[in-house]
Structure formats: structure tokens, C-alpha cells
């Protein structure tokens, strides 16, 4: 009995003594941290995706609080509204960026771009890229083993079993840019996000000449230049036998879509213009909310 009391007493006294020491040490070595960092971190999405360029949300909020000019800092996941409210809380000017969305620029489906060999190594796009051009003959097209899908932290990417291509869900995509880094073929681009998830882009990255492209893929850009000529806004440029639509200049008039002989220009959530364009209708109201990729076949 005596030893029991003694033990409890010793430990109790020891505990109190150490607590007192710890209290004074904590007071002495206290790290002064701006309490706003915690607040800002709560306002950020907490995805720790690195899309802002910092190691995580904590690092981003530290930068937001400590830097005087936060014009260069932007969280693509949170978007403009949240950045504004953070800037308002901190009393600084927020960066203004229009919303972006990742776009996968390859239209070579299994049907349009048949496989010409069989690969049975590690199922990883980067590995395939170290070996050779890939199972189709196109050196620029989607390999389809989903390095981007694994890299996406928001579940916005998926592989369509039927086409063999990667699809982007624009509602889930936060434009963090992880897929842009992950794709060994450089197929992803962060493009302007139009209202109602509309989009227009050239679904091809092949810099080969038209004759070479059409041998391996029926949906590739052959660099014919028809779209460049028809575009009234100078939004389309052709470089290395490849058309590119500048989203900042494009007005979504869709004239180029009808011109393209291979259907390499894809439109999302929009109807095609009628074959003989008379008066452009306003198709916006009929748009479904789900993603629909219209491959513009030549009729």
C-alpha cells in the first residue's frame, strides 16, 4: 500500500513539475505566426495539388499573407471568387484570371487511328514513350495508358473504353496543370473556359506533313490551312503543318469546323453550323449539361 501511494505521489509531483517547466519554455520560445495564415488556409480548398506553384495550401497562404503584391498568385482550384474574398480579407489587390480548363488535344480514336502493333510492357505512357512511337503509327497522339488520369487529383479525367482516349470533365477540372506535366506527348493545354463549358480546339498535335498524318490517322490535322482562311478573327495560325486556335481571339463562330476536311476541329457543348451557313442560330439554350464531343465528320 505504501509503495502504491509513493508511486502515485512521485509521478504526480513529477508531472506537475514538468508541466510548469514546459509552460515557461513554451512561453520563452514561442514562434510568432501571423494568425491570418491559418484563416487564409481555411479559405483555400485544401487540395494540396500544387497547381499554384507552391508545395501546398499552407505554403500558398503564407505567401499570400507575407507578400505585398499578390497579383502573381492564383489558386486555379478555388477560382476568382475565392481569390477575391482572400484578397479582401487581406486588404490587397487580387489576381484576375479568367477560368481555365484542361483540354486534351488528340482526336485519334481507336477507329480513326487503328493500332498497328501490340505493346505488352509496363502500362505507363512515359515508359511507352521511352521505347517507341506507340501502338498507333502516330508519334504525337494519345498513348492511352492514363498517366494523366493518375496525376489528376480531382477525378476529372477518365479513359473512354470505346475511343481509347482520355476525356476531361470540365465541371471537375480545376486547371491545376498536373495533366499538362504528366503527359509525355504534351497533349494537354489549359485553355479559356467559355460559359456553359463550351469549347473549340484543334484535336491534333501532329507536326508531320498532311500526307504522313493521313496515313496513320483519319482524324488528324493535315495543315491544309482552310480554317486559317475562313477565320474572320485571325484566331487560327498554322505552324509546322498544325493548326492552332487561339482561345483569346476565337469568338466561337464555328465556321472553321465546317471547313475542316478531317474533322480535327472539335466543338464541345455546341451545335455545328448548318452546312450552308445562312443566319447563325443561337444554340445555347438547347445545350445539355453533360459533356458532348462532336466529332465533325465530313458529310
Amino acid at each position, binding site marked *: 500500500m505504501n509503495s502504491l501511494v509513493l508511486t502515485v505521489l512521485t509521478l504526480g509531483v513529477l508531472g506537475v513539475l514538468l508541466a510548469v517547466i514546459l509552460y515557461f519554455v513554451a512561453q520563452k520560445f514561442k514562434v510568432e505566426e501571423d494568425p491570418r495564415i491559418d484563416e487564409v488556409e481555411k479559405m483555400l480548398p485544401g487540395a494540396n495539388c500544387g497547381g499554384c506553384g507552391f508545395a501546398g495550401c499552407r505554403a500558398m497562404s503564407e505567401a499570400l499573407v507575407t507578400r505585398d503584391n499578390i497579383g502573381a498568385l492564383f489558386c486555379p482550384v478555388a477560382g476568382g471568387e475565392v481569390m477575391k474574398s482572400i484578397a479582401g480579407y487581406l486588404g490587397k489587390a487580387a489576381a484576375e484570371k479568367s477560368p481555365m480548363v484542361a483540354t486534351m488535344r488528340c482526336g485519334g480514336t481507336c477507329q480513326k487511328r487503328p493500332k*498497328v*502493333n*501490340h505493346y*505488352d*510492357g*509496363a502500362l*505507363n505512357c*512515359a*515508359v511507352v514513350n*521511352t*521505347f*517507341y*512511337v*506507340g501502338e498507333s*503509327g502516330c*508519334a504525337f497522339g494519345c498513348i492511352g495508358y492514363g498517366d494523366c488520369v493518375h496525376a489528376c487529383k480531382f477525378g476529372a479525367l477518365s479513359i473512354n473504353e470505346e475511343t481509347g482516349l482520355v476525356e476531361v470533365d470540365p465541371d471537375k477540372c480545376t486547371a491545376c496543370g498536373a495533366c499538362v506535366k504528366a503527359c509525355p506527348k504534351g497533349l494537354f493545354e489549359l485553355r479559356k473556359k467559355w460559359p456553359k463549358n463550351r469549347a473549340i480546339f484543334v484535336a491534333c498535335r501532329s507536326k*508531320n506533313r498532311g500526307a*504522313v498524318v493521313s496515313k496513320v490517322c483519319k482524324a488528324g490535322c493535315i495543315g491544309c490551312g482552310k480554317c486559317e482562311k475562313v477565320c474572320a478573327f485571325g484566331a487560327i495560325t498554322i505552324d509546322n503543318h498544325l493548326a492552332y486556335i487561339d482561345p483569346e481571339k476565337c469568338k466561337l463562330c464555328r465556321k472553321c469546323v465546317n471547313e475542316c476536311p478531317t474533322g480535327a476541329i472539335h466543338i464541345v457543348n455546341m451545335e455545328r453550323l448548318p452546312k450552308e451557313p445562312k443566319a447563325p442560330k443561337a444554340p445555347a439554350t438547347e445545350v445539355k449539361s453533360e459533356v458532348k464531343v462532336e466529332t465533325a465528320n465530313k458529310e
Partner: protein
Amino acid sequence: MRTFPIGGIHPSDNKEWSKDKAIEVLGLPDEVKVTMIQHIGAPSTPIVAKGDKVLTGQLIGQATGFVSANIHAPISGTVTSVDAYPNGQGQRRIMVVIKREGDEWMEDIDRTPELKRECELTSEEIIAKVRNAGIVGLGGAQFPTHVKLSVPDGQKAEVLIINGVECEPYLTSDYRNMLERAEMLLTGVEILMRAVKVERAVIGVENNKPDAIAHLRDIIARDNYAGIEVMPLKLRYPQGGEKQLIAAVTGRQVAPPPALPISVGAVVCNVSTAIAVYEAVQKNKPLIERVVTITGKALGSTHNFLARMGTCVGDIINLAGGLPEGDVKLLNGGPMMGRSVVDITAPLIKGCSGITVLSGAEAARGKEMACIKCGKCVAACPMGLEPYLLSKLAKLQKWDMAEEHNTIDCIECGCCSYTCPSYVPLLDYIRIGKQTVMTNIRARANANKK
């Protein structure tokens, strides 16, 4: 009998398919496509244009730096295009296409078959000739030979090692060269000894080629090739790796990159390279042809061809009975280190010592299962690395950790993948890790320079 100290495997060598086939001179192709990248280093610049007439042996691709190699016309005729065409991996590379007209050679090339043994040239003159002839390592690595022979200031070569190991299964081109062109080989070795200023040369040959060892020893004794020794080595893959061969012959270990073999006093050359050096120095003949093995169980017939560079791979296979029915895997090289060929319109390149044709069933990989941490890959790695770990790190993109665990030491021999009971594609991932780490190291070095 000597061999390298750690790791290694014993794959069945499958050389019986083509080892008894004498070298056949392949008829001149009607058209050749000559790639401007047939070596490690900067691509060569084409110096001919469409419509130009070229003679056999004429320079058509100029080396663009020290680590680069000249490229010569393998046939005479007219240049029909200089454009991008697919190589064996389907990647488009700049190639010079020559349509053959007759068979006219450059005048300074000595085409007589007699052996010319006397060589009074100095080391610098030999290296200059080797450089002009565009000779690269013909064992498969395609490293420019003049770079190897140029011993840096302050370092001294002690021994020249000639690689007659040919540890890669299936291939027999070096073996046939040792049997049929031994005199040229040994004279080439003498010239190489002059070039790197050594008194001793060792030809390493694995003991599965006893007739090559005996034949070379006979010729050395008969014709008094002083200082050249043939060393039988115990059969083990990858003995033909440069560092493994140095360890087997001299017992010395080359430090990890960027250290070169010369740091332990060794210069290593392949037997086919030695023959090319002989032809370049004594006969003024640039590197325009090589012995290439066409082999595989699935093929109608197997051959050892002496073929011109740029010959279409598909045409060569047609001479061996054409592609077999069903799925086939074509390899530029042997099954361990060869790169698979997906486009048979691709041309023959300098580093292609053989074309191995495997049927779909032979080439199929097992289904990947989970790593059971058995450690077989660690035991098999001839560089003393931990392949299971490097592969995992590359998969997880932990590049800095991969660098700490010396992923750039990997020689890509494939022993780890071969030995893995779970069929994990270890080397596939290690290769990306190695490439990324190398890129990172180079980027850091460039940043430090600035």
C-alpha cells in the same frame, strides 16, 4: 577462368541457329536510307541535296561536334530525297535516300582483299582517320570510336581490351568475324594499340566459343602478333558490358559516372569495330557496311550477312524467308538489350549487330504480379543496384531518392526484369528514372555554369 565479380545471369544463348552460317555478302540494295543519327551525340548534318550524284564512300553527313560521327554513302547513285522517314521505333528522323546507279567507289578507297599489315602512322593520324571514317562502337552502343581513343591529358591507357564476348543471346556476327576475318581483326587491334599507345591488348572471348579462341590463338602464334592475348572468360551475361568486361579482364572497377574506363587505364573496343578500324586506316574505307546476324527460331533461314548501311530491314528479312505468320517481334539486336522494331521499312544502322525475330509466343511477357521482395533482382544486378527499389521510386516519381540510390549507374542490361519471378517490368521503369535523373543533373550543371 575469369569473370566479373557481382550479379549476372545465364540466359540460354540460342546461338546455334546462326553460328555455323558463314558471312554472306549481301547483294547491293537498289535504294538505301541513311539516317543522320547513327551514333551517340549530336546528329550529323546532311551535306548533299536532292539530285546530287554520290560515289560509294563519299561523305554525305558531316559530324557536328567532337562527340558525333561522319556518315558516308553506302552505295553510289543519285540522292532522291533528304527528308524525315521513320526509324525502327517509328520515330521520324532525317535520312538521305540514295537510289543506286552502278557501283562506283571513291578513288582513294583500296578495294583489294590482300591484308595490309604495316602501319607507320602516329597515334594522332590514326585517330584522325578513324574520325573521318565515321567509326562508332559496332557492339550496339554506337559511341564514336575516336572519342574513346583520344586519351585525355594526364591519363594513360595501360591495356586495350577487345570485346569478343558477344554475351547477347542469338547474335553471332562478332563470332563469325573472329572466325572468318581474324587477320583483319588482329591487324586492327595492332593499329588500335598504336592509337592508344599501349603494349598489351586482351581479346576477351566467352568460353562458349572455343573454336574462336583457338583460331585467334593460332593466328597470333602463326603471324607473330606481339602483345595480343586471347583471354577466355566464364560464360555469364552481361559480360560484354564495358564495365563488366574491364572488371573481368583487369579486376578493376570503374567508378560511377561521369568516370570513364580510361580512369582505370582501359580502353575497350568491339571486335567488329577493330575490323572497321583496320579497313579505315589501311584501306581508307569508311564505315559503310557491317556484319549483321538475321536469326530466330521462327525464321525460314538464318544468316550472317555483310550488308551495307541503310539497307531496308524488311528486304533483309525477305532474304531469310520473310516474316513468319502471325504475331512476331522484331528486335534490333538481341532479346536482352535489343530495341523492338515496329516499322520494317526502317534502314539498317551502324549499331545493329543483328535482327532477331521472335514469334508472339516467344516474345510474350508474363502477367505482372506484386513484388514478393525475394531479392533476385538485387542478386542479378551486375552494377550492385537495387532494381526493385529503383523501379518503385521511378513509378512514384521520387527522382531525388532515385538519384541517391545511383539509378544512373544502371547499364540497362535487363538482368533484373529477366530474373523477376513476378514478371515486374523493372527495367521499363528504371529507364524513365534514369532518363529523368540524367536530365535533372544536366539542368543543375547548366544552372551552376550560369
